[in-house]
């Protein structure tokens, strides 16, 4: 890495963190919450992007893993008194009923649990390809949701968990988004990343070049799902209440929309997609309420904003199927080039990252 590049990275990190500090102290809670959501969805989108975009294994199970992460972390961090009060149908089983651990332990537990779950699910499912894989992962995601509705002694069933401490703040969510970004970036630009992309591009050739298909698919699946699981844990501690209905297919669809919009196979695409979709989701909220245009009155129709998203998706698929970024990246080399174009001609961007 050149000196110039380090400088750009440093300046970028400074700008982002000073913005976050400013936001943390001066923005109202509503805006802060949206910022938190953006960061959390970013991590989930990066995880899904690794599985769907880079390794080419079309998985629709991300909501299930977010549920696993959310429940796993909350069960550890919920105060004992709250546990006693919300589990009034059937008491919570040991050891969770006597535990009240710090957030970081909850997050680590969420990571371990989603890694285990995704390994157990990925092991049989990743033998399938294409549409069959998508259906099977979707099925398992629903299974997780249904099981969580029925294991009342662990998840409190359909009532869900309430009173989860609001540990997630801007540092946790963006910290983890930065971590996910770093991990995926390193991974994709490494030898393992090339192996993943080779599997996506041509399975038969990849195997002939000595790449263990199943092992590498499973590796990508577990890493991606674990990132989503931790995102689920952060989400639970942001919303302070979770129930199985939150983790329907709708959640998977949202994350999928982010990476399709941003561009499958692009890290910056996933980041961009997560930002745009989360932002629009809040911004278009007024569409769900009654509207008056002059003398025309439209009664409130909940879900109208989803029509906008569907339209957006159709337009995207018709006119720009590869997504905003395609499989290109907004790289430092690109920034360097544009900068050196603005500030005289210093020869700028030689080689790419």
């Amino acid at each position, binding site marked *: 890495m050149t000196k110039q590049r380090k400088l750009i990275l440093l300046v970028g990190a400074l700008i982002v963190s000073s913005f976050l500090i400013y936001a943390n102290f001066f923005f109202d809670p509503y805006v802060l919450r949206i910022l938190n959501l953006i960061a959390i969805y970013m991590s989930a989108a990066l995880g899904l992007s690794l599985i769907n975009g880079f390794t080419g294994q079309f998985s629709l199970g991300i909501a299930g893993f977010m549920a696993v992460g959310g429940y796993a972390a909350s069960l550890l961090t919920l105060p004992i008194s709250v546990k006693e009060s919300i589990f009034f149908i059937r008491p919570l089983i040991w050891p969770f009923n006597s535990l009240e651990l710090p957030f970081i332990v909850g997050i680590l537990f969420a990571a371990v649990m989603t890694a285990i779950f995704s390994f157990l699910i990925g092991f049989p499912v990743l033998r399938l390809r294409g549409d069959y894989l998508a259906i099977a992962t979707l099925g398992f995601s629903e299974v997780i949701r249904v099981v969580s509705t029925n294991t009342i002694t662990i998840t409190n069933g359909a009532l869900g968990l309430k009173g989860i401490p609001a540990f997630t703040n801007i540092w946790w969510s963006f910290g983890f988004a930065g971590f996910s970004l770093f991990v995926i970036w390193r991974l994709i630009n490494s*030898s393992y990343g090339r192996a993943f992309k080779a599997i996506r591009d041509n399975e*038969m050739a990849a195997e*002939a070049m000595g790449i263990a298909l199943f092992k590498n698919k499973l590796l990508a699946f577990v890493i991606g799902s674990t990132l989503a699981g931790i995102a689920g844990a952060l989400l639970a501690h942001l919303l302070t209440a979770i129930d199985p209905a939150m983790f329907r297919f709708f959640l998977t669809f949202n994350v999928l929309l982010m990476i399709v919009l941003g561009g499958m196979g692009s890290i910056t695409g996933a980041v961009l997609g997560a930002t745009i979709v989360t932002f629009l989701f809040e911004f278009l909220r007024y569409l769900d309420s009654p509207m008056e245009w002059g003398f025309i009155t439209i009664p409130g129709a909940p879900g109208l904003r989803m029509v906008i998203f569907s339209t957006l998706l159709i337009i995207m698929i018709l006119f720009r199927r590869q997504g905003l970024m395609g499989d290109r990246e907004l790289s430092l080399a690109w920034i360097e080039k544009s900068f050196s174009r603005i500030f005289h001609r210093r020869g700028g961007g030689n080689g790419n990252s």
Partner: protein
Amino acid sequence: MAILKLDQVTKRFGGLVALKDFNANLEEGEIVGLIGPNGAGKTTAFNVITGVYKPEQGRVTFNSRDITMLKAHPRTAMGICRTFQNIRLFDQMTVLENILVAMHIRLKKSIFSVVAGSPGYQKREKEMKEEAFELLRYVNLDHLADERAPNLPYGQQRRLEIGRALATNPKLLLLDEPAAGMNPQETAELMEFINKIQGEFKLTIFIIEHQMMVVMGICKRILVLDYGLTIAQGTPKEIQNNPKVIEAYLGVKDSA
């Protein structure tokens, strides 16, 4: 010493016998040709050798180890590599990355040390890139290193595919119709190229080819398949004059 030995190998697809009692013996350093009309079972033979298919009967031995039931990727690690009849490059990757993918089996670093960017991995990555560049220079594609693979003209894609196979450090190289779709000049260059890599990388080469000029020109020995059966084997001269081969290719003269 025989590096590859196929012993009475039979492969069926439902009722179709694609390969029947196929025997082959490749000595180290040989270039052997495999010819036959379309659908004779040539590519099936390659798929059995590389582990894409498992045969119903028979044994495949490589370097005196029975590999009949081994999966495809460990065979590559042992030193068997191939190219494909219809080119199969990694389309969304650059020429350099295509070569680097083939070196992944020799990485031997855990994913944790890779993500953490350990000095050991960074050194290895640098070595791999240097080695890949050297290989690209060798196959004369170094000036196109950052080009995406599908943007290359056909002949160069073929060469990249061979280069990629070489990057796995093979002992046995299987070439599936490398000269398909090439003009006479390109074909002549290819023949020279195959001879060159055979000597320099100490390869044993098994080659399927329809262009007789190539097969007769570089193979010391030729096997002929027809409907899954080995109908002839021998030197190019013997094959050219073998009545069974002529029959398989041109049909029988009506003796009325």
